[in-house]
């Protein structure tokens, strides 16, 4: 077992299964591992291996069947739905494969969205959003709607939305899966910067070995079981 006392994510004997057509299909079996603060982990594996399920469990948008899952000491599996929503708002930044921006909101408004759940004033929100968008190089695109942005630009807006609340962890599910190579490299460089310069803990699911190389370590999931492939 890794140094659990300092870990930001502590997973023990985690199991998860789905019911399909009356049959119980195990997805994760007795997974145990820790993620340290400032880690950048890539979860890899074939389709159906359970990597997205593991990511969803860590992000608190799905519940395990067994085992324990603590993030920063909080057993999130035990939290009721309303508390879990509050916990997610405060502690998790999401980056999705298809960006999942609100099409009726501008880049500025999309990034501002998570801040509506905080007690920040309008001026404070504006200051933060402008800073976040400048960090992802989209100062000149604040008033643009997602449909007016390229895929890479949309994903940069999504990244700004993910770190705007200064969350404990960033979870990224195939963040480069819908992008061309140049845009993908751009996004990966941004994630590396968030990790190295801002100290963000990042857990990224990817199929792409090139993308996985950006991470500190790669965790390989196969048939619901985990092995470790350290990068550096």
């Amino acid at each position, binding site marked *: 077992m890794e140094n659990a006392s300092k870990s930001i994510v502590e997973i023990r004997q985690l199991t998860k299964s789905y019911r399909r057509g009356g049959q119980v299909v195990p997805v994760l079996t007795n997974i145990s591992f820790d993620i340290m603060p400032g880690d950048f982990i890539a979860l890899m594996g074939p389709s159906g291996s359970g990597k997205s399920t593991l990511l*969803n469990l860590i*992000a608190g*948008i*799905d519940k395990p069947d067994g085992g324990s899952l603590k993030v920063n000491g909080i057993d999130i599996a035990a939290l009721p739905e*309303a508390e879990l*929503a*509050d916990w*997610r*708002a*405060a502690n998790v930044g*999401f980056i*999705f494969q298809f960006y*999942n921006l*609100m*099409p*009726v*909101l501008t880049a500025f*408004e999309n990034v*501002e*969205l*998570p801040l*509506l*759940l905080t007690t920040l004033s*309008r001026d404070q*929100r504006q200051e933060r959003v402008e800073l976040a968008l400048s960090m992802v190089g989209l100062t000149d695109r604040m008033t643009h709607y997602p449909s007016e942005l390229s895929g890479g630009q949309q994903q940069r807006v999504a990244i700004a*939305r993910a770190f705007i609340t200064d969350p404990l962890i960033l979870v990224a599910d195939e963040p480069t899966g819908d992008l061309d190579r140049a845009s993908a490299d751009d996004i990966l460089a941004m994630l590396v910067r968030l990790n190295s310069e801002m100290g963000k803990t990042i857990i990224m699911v990817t199929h792409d070995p090139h993308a996985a190389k950006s991470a500190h370590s790669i965790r390989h999931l196969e048939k619901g079981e985990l092995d470790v492939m350290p990068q550096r």
Partner: protein
Amino acid sequence: MRYGAIAVQMHFLKLISRNSLRHKLRTGLTVLGLVVAILAFGLLRTVVDAWYAGAENASSTRLVTRSSISLVFPLPINYQERIRKIPGVSAISHANWFGGVYITEKNFFPQFAVDEKTYFDLYPEYLIPPSEMKAFRTDRKGCVIGRKLAETYGFKVGDTIPLRGTIYPGAWAFTVRAIYDGAEAGTDTSQLFFHWSYLNETLRKAVARRSDYVGVYVIQISDADRAAEISTEIDALFGNSLAETLTETEKAFQLGFVAMTEAIVVAIRIVSFVVIFIILAVMANTMAMTARERISEYATLKALGFGPRFLAGLIYGESLSIALAGAVIGILLTFPVAHAFSKQVGTLFPVFGVSLETVFMQVSAAIAVGFIAAVMPALRASQVSIVEGLRHIG
């Protein structure tokens, strides 16, 4: 309140308004459907109101005495003085339904032969200039007409109105001596009144056995609370006679007419609600499609920490804003359309106006449609699993 800050509420409203206009064609067609439905609902309710207008505007201190067998059987004129002597009766007059035809049957308007000396004293809501009233009373072939009737056919004081008698056969002609206005919006100003004495004299010469009879007595009482008691006394006075009477309040008398055509009123009422039910189905379908397409967005909002109430609020807000947009346009159109309808049907509906109650019902119907249409989509959105929702392709 978590979303209580004004800025956050502004974002909430911004999301609702932008989502409402996301599919402009779909929203436009739904609003159009709502406009038609709310307009149709308002018109049908106004028709129902017009049906009851006579009863609604009836005085509580006026009684009507008619033959207990049927309205078509007249009562002797000599009943008048006997009724007048009953305690509580402060005035009495009489009238006969004339039923004449002006040029063709479709030009319908009510005509009454009335006691020119007393009738209008019982109807203070008919406002007649004293000089015109004097002119009417002194011309035995004169008539008083209402403002709506005058405007419908362009009659002026001094014009002659030819009528073809049906109940009282022959060619009749009356000179307009006075035009009355209504004291209230609901006062019927589509009627024509002429001298009962002229009718009676003519009958006496042509069909003597039909003379000296009246259709109804109109009785003014001093105390509305004694209406039932006085009615009973009047009817008892003529019990076991050849022409027994039935006395009732003016409202009950008018409602008797409505009851004769109640099936039509019920049908109109049902149709008015069917219209609302149809638009409810259309609206519910629109909202269901809308919510289905946005499942992944709702899942994203949930992942970001927004609760089920916020998501439900977005759907209820969008549904209600579309419904109210349709309602506002529909209500605004109801007034000119009702006016045009009233012009088209002429004097068929003496009182035809969109009431405040109808507008209230239109607004209520729109709110109900907006609310009910959002129930299932809102429930679905608030219960959506984030994982399932994120996989959903809208």
